[in-house]
């Protein structure tokens, strides 16, 4: 179907208090800064955030956390160059953390998108991150049962979209975007460029439009890393 194109602020309007929100990106690559800043302005709180990290500096996810909108972070690696926004709240017991091995995180997200409530993986078998989880030995190898990870919303940075919602990404900024679009009830995508239907070759589409609900046009997206290096702070 033809997808609505809006501003970042309109795009994130439906995010409600208490929502689980996936945010794409690995470090700064693929971080939907404009959508996250719009979410800060929007005001939703009590959020559970799924991201690979827990924010850097004083912009994007770090700023969302600093503004006390986040109750819990599900991520693989909350320690970055400057993770103080998360770290301070975490050490104060004011934000919860679910630490998930990165591949398990990715596969749990895909499993949600694909309708598989649980799967066995070797990752973390025999480690403390498997504590309390069901394990099973299959052909002499120990595996851990991991469950799908769903979200109410995904905020994703892509590169190009057509009006059918088909997406392409830029280089390694692709990372979690495609699977988060699959796993969220409502996926909200910011793109640099929007074309008519048919403007993206069907064979190079990375995210098919069925996974995209709202498109925000951000013609000149900023790079989180650039903001961080410039010492920027939002708001």
């Amino acid at each position, binding site marked *: 179907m033809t997808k609505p194109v809006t501003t970042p602020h309109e795009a994130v309007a439906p995010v409600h208090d208490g929502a689980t929100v996936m945010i794409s990106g690995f470090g700064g690559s693929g971080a939907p800064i404009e959508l996250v800043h719009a979410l800060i302005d929007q005001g939703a709180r009590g959020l559970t955030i799924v991201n690979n990290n827990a924010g850097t500096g004083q912009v994007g996810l770090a700023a969302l956390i600093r503004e006390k909108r986040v109750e819990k972070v599900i991520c693989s690696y909350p320690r970055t160059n400057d993770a103080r926004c998360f770290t301070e709240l975490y050490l104060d017991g004011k934000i919860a953390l679910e630490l998930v091995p990165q591949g398990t995180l990715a596969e749990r997200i*895909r499993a949600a998108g*694909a309708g598989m409530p649980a799967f066995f993986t070797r990752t973390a078998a025999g480690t403390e991150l498997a504590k309390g989880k069901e394990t099973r030995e299959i052909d002499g190898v120990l595996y851990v049962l991991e469950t799908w990870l769903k979200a109410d919303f995904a905020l994703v940075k892509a590169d190009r979209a057509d009006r*059918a919602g088909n997406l392409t990404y830029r280089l390694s900024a692709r990372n979690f975007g495609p699977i988060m679009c699959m796993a969220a009830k409502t996926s909200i995508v910011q793109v640099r460029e929007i074309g*008519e239907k048919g403007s993206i070759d*069907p*064979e190079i589409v990375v995210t*098919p*439009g*069925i996974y995209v609900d709202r498109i925000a046009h951000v013609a000149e997206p900023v790079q989180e890393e650039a903001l961080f290096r410039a010492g920027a702070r939002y708001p």
Partner: protein
Amino acid sequence: MTENLSSFRLTRGQIAWRAAQDIPEGAYVNLGIGMPVACANHVPAGREVTFQSENGILGVGPRPAQGAEDFDLINASKDPVTLLPGAAIVHHADSFAMITGGHLDLAILGAFEVAANGDLANWSTGAARVPGVGGAMDLAAGAKAVWALTTHTDKAGRPKLVQRCDMPLTGAGVVKRVFTDLAVVDVTAEGFVLREMVGGVDVETLRALTGAPLHVPVAPGRLSPPAGL
């Protein structure tokens, strides 16, 4: 009782037409092999519907002109198709992720039997010498809604809307609406509920041809398809 039912029965094209009228604006839809495929030809003008084919196509277009067929671009029935602007190609696991992940709004499938509890039997009569299931079970389990297209009775006159399926199930409790050559029937928590029936057939006849209780509202709609389909 209505005599000489055959003059009132819808053609297969008319059944597909009737189902197509109910496909919502903006829906992502998979059309099963057989009668359902024809639904694509009858979506009302101006309504935007995106058809998925389980072999990896989102945005299936009409059959190409004769001579322009490309057998690298076929639908689940293995017939040549085209791509509409805005189409996307994915591999088989990604295609079924759309299906089993609950992203399709609708799967319109053929049926051997539909039970009053929504059970669907459409992959095996139990008698086939070689069984084949294809994507039927994935579609039945995964789509947000499943509609069944079928004749109201089989060739021997036995009801295909039944209390319990005798044939092996494709999916349990999945069918939401049935389009037959005589009626449109919803499957609800209370069982079959008549929504529309063809003109010339009375409720008593329809009930006699239905293998489970058929709840009839005060004023069921009239099923009036265009002629010539």
